[in-house]
């Protein structure tokens, strides 16, 4: 009996040992799958997730500084099919084609695909009854899912700056690209394989996804509108190839407007060639021409080498250096420093540069930010080119004095001029004011950044006084002058374009520019205008300066800093509540008739004009008292509406 018991115990131990071995085998197998084959299986699992359809969440909006919408996302249905569920493809295709007004054959081809999931039509705007009809097809393997579609309510406005987003809600250009990380929310994955239970695996619940963040730009939509209108008009009038304009707040570095001609409609960006998408203000470097003299001037004064009334001999219009002879447009004898700038004498500038010397000239150009990126938060910024003095030829110093032999971007120029305007500080240009999440909390704020002090406040003041002369009677930039007690400081530029085929400079091809700030002694705006290859007129003073004037005038009116000493700020802010009776304007927009501007502030008038896309011609200041044509007349395509303010 005892023996028997031991025998049983032994058998129990044998079985226990077998089971322990069994557990050991389980462990080894798990080890094999989880450690040895981890890479392989993990990849397989990831590939499986990739067979899913990515549905993006609602992309954040882009606003101007006054929270006007520049880019918004609206949720529209996308229609998909699960071909394996479709039993009667012909009938389904016919119905789909009718509801979606598309071609029946392409739909049929699509839904006969061997894939488990195909898009039939993405991002369609559908009436409710059509949606209802599509829901009726859900058993047949047709479904809808909400997708976010990008919409640019202001059309071309700031298009080159804002850029655009593609159909999958990914930023492709401009701010949309640069801030894609913030704008795009999380996406959700939807599996398309069938599972054992054959469940429908597609959700329509979009709310579960985290929405993208909103980007609020420093751009002021109204100023942007003013700038674009004026620039476009000028480019058309002078039959130029292209044009750029930037308006900057010189104290903060905030960009208030950045305009390009040609432009495009981001709602239909695919219809334009990519050259239309380019934001030339950032991506294109060009020879600045005589604008450079403003910075040469600043360097000379900062170094104490000359003052406004010191005189220089301008060689009667002919000056030979090395083997080259430099000319002035007129034969000047002795010119004071301020007149060299006022008349834009090349030979005078050469004399200044010679006094300054290579190293110092180079040093100041670099200090003003030329030859390096400004770091503005936009994609594709060009560096421009300022060679170091070791690589200069015998005449480089002389040519650079009037802006040949270096290249700069428009953003660099307006930023450098801002440093003169604000008392000597080079700022970092800002394009975004802040980023907020969809709950409205500010996630990231962009405060003004001082890069460095370039010149002293005293120098800045002196340079400004001399630059004011440019826009006064007899100066090259007289057409930029506003009169009415507002002084403009600036410099014209008329740069020959390099001939890329033959070398040297091309005959009769110029970049006409004006760079300045206003009001000169208490600047609100720094503005650059550059017109590429104008054919009617060629000089900066002739072509670009009037554009500066028009933009400066309207923008200052809008900002309420006109005239210079008036108590205009309060006035504008108190009457800003223009929405007391917004209906007539909306009605006018809807019916495409001339709206009633009377009783409105200049800002109100510009707002409406911007919304309607009509041109307005503003006279005087205060509130609108008269307009032609009168309210209610049908809108014509051509011709501005004249509005008189009092």
């Amino acid at each position, binding site marked *: 009996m005892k023996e*028997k018991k031991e*025998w*049983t*115990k032994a*058998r*129990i*131990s044998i*079985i*226990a040992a077998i*089971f*322990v071995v*069994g*557990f050991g*085998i*389980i*462990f080894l*197998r*798990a*080890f094999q*799958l*989880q*450690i040895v*084959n*981890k890479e*392989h*299986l*993990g990849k*397989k*699992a990831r590939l*499986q*997730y990739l067979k899913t359809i990515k549905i993006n969440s609602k992309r954040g909006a882009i606003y101007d500084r006054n929270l006007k919408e520049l880019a918004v996302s609206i949720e529209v249905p996308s229609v998909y099919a699960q071909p394996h569920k479709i039993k009667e493809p012909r009938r389904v295709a016919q119905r789909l084609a009718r509801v979606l007004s598309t071609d029946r054959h392409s739909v049929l081809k699509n839904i006969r695909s061997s894939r488990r999931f195909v898009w039939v039509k993405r991002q369609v705007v559908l009436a409710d009854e059509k949606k209802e009809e599509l829901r009726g097809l859900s058993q047949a393997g047709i479904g809808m899912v909400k997708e976010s579609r990008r919409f640019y309510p202001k059309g071309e406005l700031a298009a080159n700056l804002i850029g655009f987003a593609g159909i999958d809600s990914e930023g492709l250009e401009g701010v949309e690209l640069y801030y894609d990380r913030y704008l795009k929310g999380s996406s959700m994955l939807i*599996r398309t*394989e*069938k*599972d*054992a*239970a054959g*469940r429908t*695996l597609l959700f329509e619940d979009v709310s579960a996804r985290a929405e993208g963040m909103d980007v609020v730009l420093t751009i002021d939509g109204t100023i942007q509108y003013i700038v674009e209108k004026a620039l476009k008009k000028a480019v058309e009038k002078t039959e130029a190839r292209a044009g750029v304009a930037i308006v900057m707040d010189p104290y903060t570095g905030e960009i208030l407007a950045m305009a390009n001609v040609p432009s495009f409609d981001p709602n239909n960006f695919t219809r334009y060639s990519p050259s239309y998408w380019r934001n030339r203000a950032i991506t294109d470097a060009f020879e600045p021409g005589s604008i450079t003299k403003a910075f040469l001037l600043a360097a000379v004064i900062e170094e104490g080498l000359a003052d406004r009334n010191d005189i220089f001999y301008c060689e009667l219009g002919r000056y030979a250096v090395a083997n080259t002879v430099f000319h002035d447009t007129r034969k000047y004898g002795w010119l004071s420093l301020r007149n060299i700038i006022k008349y834009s004498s090349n030979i005078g500038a050469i004399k200044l540069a010679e006094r300054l010397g290579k190293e110092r000239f180079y040093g100041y150009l670099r200090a003003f930010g030329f030859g390096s990126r400004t770091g503005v938060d936009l994609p594709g910024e060009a560096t421009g080119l300022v060679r170091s003095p070791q690589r200069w030829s015998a005449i480089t110093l002389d040519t650079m004095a009037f802006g040949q032999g270096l290249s700069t971007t428009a953003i660099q120029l307006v930023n450098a001029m801002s440093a003169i305007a604000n008392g000597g500080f080079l700022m970092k240009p800002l394009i975004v004011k802040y980023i907020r999440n969809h709950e409205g909390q500010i996630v990231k704020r962009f405060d003004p950044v001082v890069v460095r002090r370039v010149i002293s406040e005293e120098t800045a003041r002196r340079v400004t006084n001399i630059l004011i002369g440019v826009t006064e009677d007899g100066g090259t930039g007289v057409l930029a002058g506003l009169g009415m007690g507002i002084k403009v400081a600036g410099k014209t530029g008329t740069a020959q374009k390099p001939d890329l085929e033959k070398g040297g400079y091309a005959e009769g091809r110029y970049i006409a520019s004006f760079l300045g700030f206003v009001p000169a002694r208490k600047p609100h705006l720094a503005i650059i205008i550059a017109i590429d290859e104008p054919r009617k007129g060629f000089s900066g003073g002739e072509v670009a300066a009037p554009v500066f004037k028009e933009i400066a005038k309207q923008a200052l009116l809008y900002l309420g800093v006109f005239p210079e000493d008036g108590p205009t700020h309060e006035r504008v802010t108190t009457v800003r509540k223009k929405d007391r009776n917004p209906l007539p304007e909306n009605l006018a927009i809807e019916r495409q008739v001339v709206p009633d501007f009377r009783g409105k502030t200049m800002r109100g008038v510009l707002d409406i004009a911007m919304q309607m896309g009509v041109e307005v011609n503003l006279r005087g200041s205060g509130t609108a008292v008269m307009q032609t044509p009168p309210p209610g007349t049908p809108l014509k395509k051509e011709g501005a509406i004249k509005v008189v303010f009092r």
Partner: protein
Amino acid sequence: MLKRNADRILIVSVFLLVALGVVMVYSTSFMVALERYGDKYFFVKKHIVYTLMGFGAFLVALKLPYRAYRSLAPALFVVAVVLLFLIFVPGVGHKVGGARRWIDAGFIRFQPSEVAKLGMVVFMAYLLERKKDRIQDFYTGFLPCVVLPAIPIALVMAEPDLGTSVTMAILLMVMAFIGGVKARYIGGLVVASLPLMYAVITSFDYMTRRIVAFLDPWKDPGGAGFQIIQSFLAFGSGGLSGVGLGEGRLKLFYLPEAHTDFIFSIIGEELGLIGVTAVIVLYAGILLSGMVIARNSREPFGTYLAAGITLMLTLQALINMAVVLGMLPPKGLPLPFLSYGGTSLMVSMASVGILLNIYTAEGDR
């Protein structure tokens, strides 16, 4: 050490597994529950109720002297057979997924095969004790130990539930081996039953497909091999330390019913090899402490019963784990203590109560 602490090791192992079960049932079921019932706690709430009921069954079994089962054993055998018969009675038997495995008793639905399993273990222990002097004899010892258990096994097979019937057969044969039946008789029986198995498998289409899918799951990854491949991917994604509790993705759509039979795969995904190893160690704890209890019982009935119960629990665990790791053909067998399911949990908990009662009965003397 093991001998003196067998009860503690057993209790700790079981309770850790039950606690992990509650967590994992929630982790694996909340998505399905939300989708189907709009309440992500739907399954875990029921599972907690089952756990409490299982705890009650455990306490009752703990207090009930195990010797009482000896006189009840013939009755239990009859009850098991009757229950398994009832499945085939229309209106009582409940069909789920093409097989009759459930009895609807009005207030509660349960799986009689789970109950029958325990009943048969008790009966087998009783039978082996009675026959122990003649056990080596073919006609009076071996044959009764084969013929009588064959009745319920055949009934389970007819449900059809090949997996459970094979599990029961293995379990009872191992008990017979411990009870002293000659190894060569058992070997002969296994060989003799192979043609029968083949006949059964080929007569049921779904079984054939399962076997084929087991042999080469990658051949039809979207169809028959789907589940097992998803299980592989779950283990592979988990790696050493897992993707984190509740973070598993495969349970969402890829491994349907992950809270029942494939809960071990999700443990592999979310807790990694570390979690998998811990579970294996806990089952090994149950195995070793149960076997110690069996060896130490002075009555043959206690020995056989303790061994039978221990093997019943650990064999199921072994088979379930082997299945989800792709080492055995797929079959619907829950993982004791971990899987969602009331009957299985209550029977398992009651079994542990009986085991501990056997242990304490020895201590009394």
